[in-house]
């Protein structure tokens, strides 16, 4: 044996040992906690195999943009008033998707001054349209994309915090495109709860109840619903209904106020007229926990504000003694207690109403979690959800493995019969191929899914092709009357370009599949891609190594080849 052969043999042996080490914990199903085996990593099973929850959320930027716009324009008006210019903000126009605009009116004489302030100090705003004495403003493009990025990354962070408290091993929270958040929670059983935790905006707001207006809200709402012909229907988003109602009530209620409800069982919702101004938000909370309300015999959530929030809270309660303070969570009023006197220290409770028993405790615990983890910066809409139970996953593994095993065994038997000794070489090469693919999969921390198992079997099925191409070439060369050694060398030489070309098209397709569809299909693409690399490697090195050894051992005096 020459040096080159030993070198190649050494390299292959090294790869083999490394691969076996990677695969042993998975195949032997070792307990990673207790085992003495030095390599402590198993293959990641996809959600479709181990069970779990996959969710795609769409981030609703519209509201974020609208709020940022009004805030920025508020800032502008403040600045202008410092310069003794009075300006007025009109209604926000949200007809253009993701680019709301608002008009600002001012004295025509001060136009230059307004423009100056806008240019120099309000980088967030851009002028869309200018008329005499009025500008139409919207958010600057770069600023909008900053908001977008920020909102997206913050959403991921908040969800991660919540999931961490919920306790899921190896969750994956990623962004997709520019407005999607993908959440993968392996092994989650209580799907409903997980969804409530992840998707809830959890925006806590303290607002004053408008008691000055003296309206009979119940009647007013009933009238409006009747005249406009809508009402809340089961299955509709409650927030959509409230939005529609407030739109319809415009002019009938004070401009700085809005109607929000306390939800009661059986659709007996209790309306409140609230001042739109948010006095304190959930951002000022430093902690939240479940406590027990002795009087109501029900769990409740106690919260503690940070020092800044506590000061604001104390001021607020001092200035509004006797009035009602509404605690609003995700645009739903939870309670609106009367302020009996200034409250120092900044702590309070949120009562949940009496859903009773175990459910109430769960709800309280989850509410505490989301309040601690913070609010999502925007509303998330659940667009796609795939949940798989553990028993179905186990079934899938069994099915996938059985089918793959049978398929591969058939190939091995066929190759042995058809190509005899050379077939045995091919079988060794195919087994090594499968081993390497699995080892790389584990080493790369890639995920094995059900289609991935199919991909692994398919890799073997297609890898045979490279062996077949080589063997058929060698047979052709033999047929043309070449010596065994010459035929083998020519066969390998000619086959390689062909094998390479043929596999590249698979690689192109697999790369595209990688960016398509859901997790399981990506698993398929990943295995195919890895399989292509190992196929190229095995066909050329493993088979060649055996043939070289055989030719050398027989001292090139071979009359025939078992092929």
């Amino acid at each position, binding site marked *: 044996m020459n040096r080159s052969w030993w070198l190649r043999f050494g390299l292959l042996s090294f790869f083999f040992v490394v691969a076996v080490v990677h695969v042993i914990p998975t195949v032997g199903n070792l307990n990673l906690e207790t085992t003495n085996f030095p390599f402590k990593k198993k293959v990641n099973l996809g959600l*479709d195999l181990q069970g779990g929850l996959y969710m795609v959320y769409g981030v609703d930027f519209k509201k974020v943009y609208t709020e940022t716009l009004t805030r920025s324009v508020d800032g502008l008006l403040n600045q202008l008033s410092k310069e003794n210019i009075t300006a007025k903000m009109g209604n926000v126009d949200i007809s253009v998707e993701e680019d709301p605009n608002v008009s600002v009116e001012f004295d025509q004489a001060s136009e230059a001054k307004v423009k100056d302030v806008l240019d120099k100090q309000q980088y967030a705003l851009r002028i869309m349209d200018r008329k005499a004495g009025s500008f139409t403003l919207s958010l600057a493009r770069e600023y909008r994309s900053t908001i977008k990025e920020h909102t997206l990354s913050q959403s991921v962070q908040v969800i991660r915090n919540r999931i961490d408290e919920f306790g899921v091993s190896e969750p994956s929270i990623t962004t997709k495109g520019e407005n999607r958040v993908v959440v993968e929670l392996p092994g989650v059983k209580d799907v409903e709860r997980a969804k409530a935790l992840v*998707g809830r905006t959890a925006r806590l707001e303290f607002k004053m109840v408008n008691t000055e207006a003296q309206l009979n809200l119940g009647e007013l709402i009933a009238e409006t619903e009747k005249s406009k012909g809508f009402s809340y229907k089961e*299955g509709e988003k409650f927030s*959509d209904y409230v939005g529609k109602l407030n739109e319809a009530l415009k002019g009938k209620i004070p401009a700085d106020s809005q109607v929000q409800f306390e939800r009661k069982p059986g659709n007996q919702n209790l309306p409140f007229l609230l001042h739109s101004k948010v006095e304190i938000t959930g951002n000022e909370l430093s902690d939240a926990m479940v406590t027990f309300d002795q009087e109501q015999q029900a769990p409740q959530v106690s919260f503690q504000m940070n020092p800044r929030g506590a000061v604001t809270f104390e001021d607020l309660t001092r200035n509004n003694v006797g009035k009602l303070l509404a605690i609003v969570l995700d645009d739903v009023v939870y309670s609106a207690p009367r302020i009996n006197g200034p409250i120092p220290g900044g702590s309070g409770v949120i009562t949940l109403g009496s859903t009773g028993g175990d459910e109430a405790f769960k709800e309280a615990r989850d509410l505490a979690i989301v309040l601690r983890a913070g609010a999502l910066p925007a509303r998330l*809409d*659940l*667009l796609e*959800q*795939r*949940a798989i*139970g553990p*028993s*179905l996953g186990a*079934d*899938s593994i069994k*099915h*996938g493995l*059985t*089918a*793959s095993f049978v*398929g*591969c065994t*058939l*190939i091995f038997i*066929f190759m042995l*019969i*058809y190509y*005899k000794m050379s077939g045995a070489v091919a079988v060794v090469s195919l087994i090594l191929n499968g081993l390497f693919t699995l080892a790389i999969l584990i080493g790369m921390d890639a995920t094995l899914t*059900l*289609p991935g*198992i*199919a991909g692994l*079997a*398919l890799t073997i*099925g*297609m890898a*045979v*092709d490279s062996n*077949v*191409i080589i063997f*058929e070439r060698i*047979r*052709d060369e033999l047929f043309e009357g070449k010596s065994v050694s010459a035929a083998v060398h020519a066969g390998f030489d*000619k086959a390689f*370009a*062909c094998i390479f*070309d*043929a596999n*590249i*098209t*698979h690689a*192109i*397709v*697999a790369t*595209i*599949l990688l960016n*398509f*569809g859901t997790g399981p*299909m990506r698993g398929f693409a990943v295995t*195919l891609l890895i399989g292509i690399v190992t196929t190229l490697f095995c066909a050329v090195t493993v088979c060649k190594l055996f043939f070289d050894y055989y030719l050398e051992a027989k001292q090139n005096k071979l009359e025939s080849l078992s092929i």
Partner: protein
Amino acid sequence: MLHLIPTTINYDFLKMSKPFVWFSTAFVILSVVLLFTKGLNYGIDFTGGAEVQVSVPAGWDTGKLREVLKGGGFGEASVIRIEDSKRNEFLIKTQVSDADSPIVGDKITKLLGSSLQAGEYEVEKVDVVGPQAGSELRTSAVVSVLMAALGILIYITFRFDVRFAPGIVRALLFDVISTLGVWVMIGKEFNLSTVAALLTIAGYSCNDTIVIYDRIRDFQKSHPGDSLYAVVNRSINLNLGRTVLTVLCTNFVVVSLWLLGGPVLGDFALCMLIGFCISIPSTIFVANPMVIYMEKRANAKDQKVDTSRPKHA
């Protein structure tokens, strides 16, 4: 040496290709017509909707389950029993509104919970695709297929010259469209995994063609005197063993996956099986004559290469 295909084989495949080209063209047209008339049976991945798989006690049948579902406002839902399963399993399919889509799984769980004890039933799978996500997935499916075709086309034009590229693309289109046609005929569901299967078929179809084209190139170099017609024919004949063996081996796996792989892998594998089988005749009878045709066109003015059928062949 064991031979599936005798080494002495020397059929004039090109001669036989003419009727097949007509047949394949007719089949593609039929497939396209079917696609537009009968249409694909789109799954919830593309239409949006909910698919819930549940296992219930042995006594339950579709009627009983339907009744329970009706009580919860799922009167429209279709309920199908999943055959060849040890448990008593059903697949519930229903359309959902945007607002309902986050809670449809929970609703069905609650419905079952109200008439069964815990442990007697299991919600095994909940797939909910909102209308918006459905249309996005549809777009991404179309984009993926186009990108795959483009990627392959670019690669082939780089690696082979212009004479070869059209044959590969034509065989590829034939394979994918015909598979779709068969898919419509047998009324199977078209979903994300079908798209993945189609893309895999596209890769496989090219692979097959490329191997023969590679042979043709080799032969042209080693036998410069022979006519292209003879070279192509000889290449097909020599490669026949490989084509049959490879498809056979791949199909060992695919058929196993189809028959033993369970419901999810079953359809995925079946689609590939159809495509792989179609890819054999398409390579031999569609892709190869294209080479001759392109050569003829290229040499229409300048008759240097003899593309006519030699009399002795």
